[in-house]
């Protein structure tokens, strides 16, 4: 399994778009599995950290495979996208539930729940990113890697062969632009 994930990553890196489609469901369900594993083993106050999750996911899926840095960073890029969709899908589903959409069997106690505003934020960030992708795809990708993939500016710089300084300032510009879009 680890081999097939590694080879899928390799194929995707070499431009095979179908490999990404095969990879996504694997990453998606593994990420969920690890998330629930966390809930089981960690203390109740533990907060689910996207970055830590993705790192663990990589170790798990590609453990015996390549130690190639490029494979790892490409994997991170996929995982970032998956993490983004997990968070956004979840926030949207909750939003829909609150509006009374879908079959309602569960009335969740609001006290422990996140507020609708916050739930809205991740969706708004996602939508802002979509808008940014249309005008400047490269910068949108930086944000995705940094926030959903948990990569540092140094790592991004290395994988994209850019000066760290350039990555940092592009990120800040993108974030400022997004913040203005999202928070007004």
């Amino acid at each position, binding site marked *: 399994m680890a081999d097939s994930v590694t080879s899928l990553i390799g194929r995707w890196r070499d431009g095979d778009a179908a490999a990404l489609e095969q990879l996504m469901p694997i990453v998606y369900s593994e990420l969920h599995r690890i998330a*629930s594993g966390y809930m089981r083993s960690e203390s109740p106050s533990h907060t689910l950290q996207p970055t830590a999750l993705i790192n663990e996911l990589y170790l798990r*899926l590609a453990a015996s495979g390549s130690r190639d840095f490029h494979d790892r960073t490409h994997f991170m890029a996929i995982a970032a996208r998956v993490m983004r969709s997990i*968070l956004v899908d979840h926030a949207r589903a*909750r939003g829909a539930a609150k509006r009374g959409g879908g079959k309602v069997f569960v009335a969740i106690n609001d006290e422990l729940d996140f507020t609708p505003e916050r*739930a809205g934020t*991740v969706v708004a*960030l996602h939508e802002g990113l979509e808008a940014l992708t249309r005008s400047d795809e490269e910068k949108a990708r930086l944000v995705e890697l940094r926030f959903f993939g948990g990569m540092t500016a140094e790592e991004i710089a290395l994988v994209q062969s850019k000066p760290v300084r350039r990555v940092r300032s592009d990120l800040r*510009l993108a974030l400022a632009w997004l913040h203005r879009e999202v928070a007004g």
Partner: protein
Amino acid sequence: MTPDEVGRLFEAALDLPPHDRASFIEKQTPDPELRREVLSLLAHDAKAESFFDHAIRSAATSVENALHLPAGTIIGHYRIVSLLGRGGMGAVYLADRADGLFEQRAAVKIVSCGAPEYAQALVQRLEQERRILAQLSHPNIARLYDGGQTSTGLPYFVMEYISGVPIDDYCRTRNLSRNDRLIPFLKVCDAVQYAHRNLIVHRDLKPANLLVTADGEPKLLDFGIAKILGPNQADPAALSTRALTPEYASPEQVRGDPITTASDVYSLAAVLYLLMSGSGPHKLDGLSPLDTVRTIAEVEVPPASTVDPTIPRDLDAILTKALRKDPERRYRTVDEFASDLRRYLEGRPVHASPDTLLYRIGKFWRRNWIACTAAVTVLAIVLGAATAAVVQGRRADRRFADLRRLSNTFLFDFEESIRQLPGSTKPRQLVVNTALTYLESLAADSTSDPTLTRELAAAYLKVGDIQGDTGGPNLGDIAGALRSYTKAKQLLDQVGDATASQPDRLRLYATVAGRITGVHLWSADLQKALPAAREQVELTTRLLESDSANTETIRTATAAYGALSDILARSNDLTGAKDLRLRTVQLLRNESTRHPELKANLAASLSQLGTVYEKLEDFNNAIASLRESIAVLEGLLASGTPSVQNRRQLMISYSRLGTILITPKTAPPEARREAEQLGFKAYTIARELAEADPANARALSDLMATAARYAHNLLGAGEYPQAVGAYRTAVQHAEDHVRRDPNDREARINRALTRGYLGEALLKSGDTTQALAERQFAAKEYAELAAASPDDSRIAAAQAWNLEGLGHVYLRLGDLASARRQAGDGIRLADRFIAADPANRALKSYRDDLADLQSEIEKKSARTR
């Protein structure tokens, strides 16, 4: 103002302290718009990072919260009390009935992992399985009350709450003696056997799912849940998401192979091993996941007496037999396992005996399943490199010949050797496609070589077989198969083999012609099938004259007679069909004394002869033919290796005999009981075959058909609630088939048929409301199917039958106007088709039934007035 200008200025300003930035920008540009833009972005920069960081953290927290429900949360009719535990798949909560209708404690399991599509698929599977599982009513099985989807889209189950301890803890804390431990264990076996009889496999038997209550009653949890949660076996990506309890998982489970009732036998035995010896059958602590899988799949379980020398030999033998790697070699049922344990308790001799030398090949395959797959890949690479070299070098004759030999060895020997192994359809496809690619590139290089042309034709024949040989394991690509067979025939026509005098050439040609007939027959295209079959019979008769001693020739000839007989039967020439079948049976009876390898063909022909007799309503001859067929097959299976073909043939003969036994209205009760048993035996074989080879489309269709026939037999035996359950199983298989290929007309017809029958069984068991829903669904489906094929009399007959059934449901409900409408529609439909084909017996009998319905309606109408 360009984005680049904005970027450059923004970046430069970032280096300055915030209060110096405004004046810096003013100095850099006179453009007011650019100044405003950069200043605005700089103002947002300060808050942006922490804002998004927070947003994402809280979104992650909400995912987390969704994994843990607070007390008081309402799920369906239940209110969460507390968390009982978490597993890889989600959490289990203690819950109380919330609507106050009655007091009930329950365990609510919420499945909280997977992508939305996955959750959706789970909910669908849950819906399908829930009704079947809810029927499981046994004192030692925890009930499944309810299930559904939470508002966040997560699937959940509500189960009977059991207050108890795992069976191993129970035995240990009470310090039970070895024999006393068997008492709760045997109750567990009875419960599992009860579920197997209801066609439900547990799939995750382990101490944590076998709780013992304070008064010593064992209770089985989570029956059938593992199947709902388990990965879709047709999807290789799902392998990565398999959650296992490896200590008790069977070898086939860890390999990702299909699960059968034999897997439950293994898991039960693994639990018993623990109860008897104090440790599990394998030492898995500290092993990597890969080594865990290898250990369970390949390492023989050491006799329990090596762990605890006081374990008696008979108990050792029982455990060893139940823990065999090969599911075929374990106890065939949990009952047999339990009976042997009872014999041990009573001090009588047990049936378990030490390993024999049989099944070596199967063992080899099992041990080498990784190596075999690798061999295919390596050969493919070698062939690929060799082909390139030859084609580039143009006519390096010797190497060319070598390569051809290699391709052929690969294609025929290797393919043959794995053909009858369960689960080999996909590897076979890989083998054949690979070899074919190389042969084709060689053929392109030398089109004038007749031997090569024949080899290529043989390769196309093989490819066609794997795509859609309707007489063997195949991938269900009928159109692709026809293309391949046609290509083979064209190639053979090029070299003039249709009129060849050499038996080998004629035989290959006849085989290809036979396959083409088979495809037309499968697609119910009688107009194309009839001339193809006549050509085939003509060819093989000629072949038989020159080559009568060859068993291959005899097989080819009997296949041709069989195909033509089948077509004649479908064209209502039953006497012609019977004569051909009798001729075939006679030929095979004679030849199989000299060539025992023809016995399987004899059994198949006898079964088909039985079917023709059945259609002629000559039931005594039909029953005699089928009994002879079963005897031949049971003899074959008892003496030889269990081939897929022979097991499937036995399945067909069991199933047909069952149906025929209850067809006469005067069938005695013992015939009805025998029919029910035969139906179950047939379904069990179908299930084993389908689970052993999930990629095989024919196995799926067999599964649906045997389940439906089993249900028919139950209905015929008057076992209405059981018939409802069996029809639901059939419906589920039919739905699976439609999902697999939504455009498959046959699959949709089968679904409509099984749902209509389910309606029938529901009506008979008194559930009129659900009966109405099923019959209405079927009616809608038939209307659509009939609109697409307005001249198909088979669909018309089924539609008429269903209208009659629907009319009966309305009649029962007292809705006479609707009942009258169905009866009228049905009679008009039947009349239209009977006018075109006055010999159509099925439609005439449905028309009679519809007329009866009409008079019943009028009688009732007169009474109510």
